[in-house]
Structures are given as structure tokens and as C-alpha cells.
């Protein structure tokens, strides 16, 4: 099992959610986050006072899937979240040791 964490542009969330749902991903967790990568930040100017905004708003999605689905999920997210512009985001894949569904007590593959 793998936990896939992806940081994407906020306005791409709906496209990504629909596409993941279509390939059989059963659920996801979404968080509004701020951060920076190669895009760095940008500057804002208020009556001539310039401020560097170093953290830009992004959406972080977390999806837990069986190992055989990892490639499909990565492809889907990459395809849907891509604009070709700097700041499209990143995908991290982490090993997942255990999963428990609280209501039923099911574990691992059954709980995904």
C-alpha cells in the first residue's frame, strides 16, 4: 500500500478529484496549504510598498491506494494538474504500513 501526497494548483482540484474517482480511487483528504518550490513567491504592491509573498496557496491531496494502483494514480494526477507553467506542484509517494477502518475494524486492503 502507498500513501500518495500531491501538491497542486487550487483550481485543478475538481479535475483531479473527478479523474481519480473515475479510475476507482475511493476517497481522499484535501488540505489548503501554503508553500514554495521553484516558483518561489511573488510580490504584491500596496501604494508603492512592495512585499515579497514567499508562500503561495496550494492544495494538498492525500490518497491511500493499493500498490498496483500507484502508477495509474500518478499518471492521472500528473495529467489533470498539469498546465506546463512553473508552480504546477509535486507528487510524493510514501510506503503505507497499516490502514484501519474505524467503523468496522477492517484492516489494510479491505479498509482502503
Amino acid at each position, binding site marked *: 500500500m502507498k500513501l500518495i501526497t500531491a501538491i497542486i494548483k487550487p483550481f485543478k482540484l475538481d479535475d483531479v478529484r473527478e479523474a481519480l474517482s473515475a479510475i476507482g480511487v475511493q476517497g481522499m483528504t484535501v488540505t489548503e496549504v501554503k508553500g514554495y518550490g521553484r516558483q518561489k513567491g511573488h510580490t*504584491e*504592491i*500596496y*501604494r*508603492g*510598498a512592495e*512585499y*515579497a*509573498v514567499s508562500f503561495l496557496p496550494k492544495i494538498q491531496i492525500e490518497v491511500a491506494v493499493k500498490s498496483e494502483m500507484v502508477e495509474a494514480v500518478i499518471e492521472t494526477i500528473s495529467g489533470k494538474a498539469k498546465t506546463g507553467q512553473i508552480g504546477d506542484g509535486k507528487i510524493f509517494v510514501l510506503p503505507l504500513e497499516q490502514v484501519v477502518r474505524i467503523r468496522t475494524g477492517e484492516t489494510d486492503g479491505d479498509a482502503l
Partner: protein
Amino acid sequence: MSFDCKKVGTCAAVAAGAILASSGTAFAAAPKIDSGDTAWMITSSALVLMMTIPGLALFYAGMVRKKNILATAAQSFGATCIITVLWMVIGYSVAFTTNANSNLNQYIGSFNYFLLGPMGLNATSTLAPTIPESVYMFFQMTFAIITPALIAGAIADRMKFSAFMWFMSLWLLFVYCPIAHWVWGGGFLGQWGALDYAGGTVVHLNAGTAGLVACLMLGKRVGYGTENMAPHNLLFALIGASLLWVGWFGFNAGSAVTANVNAGMAAAATQIATAAAALGWMIMEWMINKKPSVLGMISGAVAGLVAITPASGFVNPMGALVIGFSAGVVCYFASVWVKKWLGYDDALDTWGVHGVGGALGAMMTGMFASNAINSSAKGWLIDGNAHQMLIQFYDVGCTFLYSGIGTFIILKLIDIVIGIRVSRDVEVEGLDINLHGETVHG
């Protein structure tokens, strides 16, 4: 005798003369209260009050950081309350009644209206004979409220509330009241013929100068120039600026003190100048900073309102258009570039918008005043009266010097006794929680 020119200097002189002439003898005709004028002036008073609360409170609070929103709004609200009471106690008397000693009357009114004692139900002022004096006193009170409250923009984010309330009180009595008397109450500037329809120098240059002096004395905010001090909620600022715009019809058209043709033309001039100024600032920003910001548009609108204030009852619509557009461009440079070059921290640009806009408006009033619009005025460009420019310059100079020196002395005294600036810890953590014990979002 038409009193459609309460705030025309020459008219104030006539009024003062009328008082002298009538002393010892009965008035030729008893003043007659006009119901239309009275209705308009009560409405105007409420409109001008709305400019301070919630207009100015929202305008300023939207431009500060989240930790100082309530403290900034509290300054407008607190000023409204303390000034209302002080105006009733002695402010109105000093500013708008006639001193029996005609030499002293050049500079200051009488003390006879202490606690508004002589103001009975049917009393009228010689400065506004067609409305009850209670209404005239209230109308002028709302001007007295907003003028000191404007200074809060320059000192935002770092002044003690206690020091602020003392500052408002002393500044009202020792700076605003005398200057209002000089121009509108029968004093020397009015007698010279200074044209200030609704307060370009008395209100805006006066407050702007005080703001400049105050921000220099307080020093820069902690982190100025390095930390992010971006406005917390520009939508508040936009609502506030819009309320200022709407309320300003009470300010300018109300300054006719009657519901007549001058009030109508002043209202039209105000609307035209404000829109032109907002466009002026927008265009400059669009060309130089590449984006037309909301903060720029609303700042330009306020600059236009300020600049048309002294001119509103004297100029025709074309004059208003030129004055407005000029104000947008000039105040943009004052607030965005001059402040940066000189390095003072006029936090919300009280000087850049009100000081510079007020002085510009006063000078341009001399240029564009038209005898065809107001029979008590003769301007330079239309009527060929270049001398008016000199009088306007005296008006600007006297206001700047007196306001600057008066503000310095008052703040120095308050600083010695209780201190004017909050501690560094309080400033960094925020004024809301430390000075008022509350925060805007629970």
C-alpha cells in the same frame, strides 16, 4: 441677504460686520427658520457623521494588519465620542461664536457658549440664519469629529489609545477650533478673502499636516520596509471609502448651509471630481505599476473628494474635472513615491492624500473659482483675479505652520506625561489584544 455662502471668507466677514452693526440695536428682521434648509442640514449632519463612523473606521481598519483592526476602528469611534462632548462643552463656542473684542475675534471666538448655555430652542447663528442653531452646531460638530479622526491614518499601528484620546481632545481645542474660527468663524483668514468652501485647509490640510508631524514624532512602525504590512481586508477599505464618498455630499453640498442652487452645484462638482481623481490614480498606477489596484482606485477617489472640498461651491463642472484628475495624479506621486524617497512612515497616507490633496485643492480653488458660480468669489483663470492665488497661499501657509507647530507641542507634552507610543512587545503582538483585550475573530 442671501447666506448661501456660509463658508466663504468674505461672507464670514459680512456676518461679523452684521453682528457688530446690530449690537445695541434690534435686528431689522427676525431670522426666519426655513424648513427645507433645516431638513437638508439635519440630513447633511447625519451624512458627515457617517463619514467617520463607519466610513473612516472601515477605510482605515481595512488597510491595517489583522492584529490592529479593532484598535484602528476604536480610534474613529473614540474620537467621535470625546469630540462630541468637548464640542458641546466649549469647542463650538471657541470656533463659531463672535468674540466681543474685535481684535481677539481675528483669532478666537467667545467663551459665552460654554456648555451651549445660550443656545435656546429658537436660537439661530448669524452664520446660518435660516436653520436652528442646534442644527448648525451639530453640523459643525461632525466636521470637528472627522478632522482629528483623519490623523489616525498616519499614526496607525503604534499609538497608545490613552495618548490618542488626549491628543484628539487637545488638538481639537487648540488646533482645530482656532483654525476653523480664522476661516469660517469671522477670523482673519476669512476676512482676507480666503476661499475654503467646505474645509480643504481647515479640515484636510490641517489633519494631513498633523498626521505628518505625528508620524515623524512616533517614528516608523517596527518592521517597516522589511515585514509584510499588506492590508488585511481591502473590501473593508472599499466599503469605507464608498461611505466617505456618499457622506461627502453632506460635507460639500451641506456647506452651502441652505438647500439651494449652490448646494446643487457643489454636489455635482463633488461627484465629477471624485470620479476623475479615481481614474487619475488608476491610470498612473496602471502605467507605472502595471496593475490598477483596488487600493489605488479608492485612494484616488478620496484624494478627489479632498481636493474638491475647498472648491466645491465655487467652481463649475469643468473646473471640478480638472481639479479631480490633478488630485488623483498628484496624490499618487505623494503617497507612493515621495513617501518612499523621504522615508517617513505615514502608515495610511493621511499626509499624502489629505495634506497634499487639501493644499492642492486650496490652490486650485484660487485658479478655478468662478464669479458666475458664486458671487462672493473671483478666481484667477476665469475672472482674472490673480491676487486670489496669493490669498490662497497665505491660507495654506498659515494652516500648515500653525497645525504643524501646534501638533508638535501637544504631542511633546503628552509624550512627557504618559508617553505616546506602545511598547515594542505590544506593537509586535498587536494592539487589539493588548490595548482593548479583544480580537476581531474570537
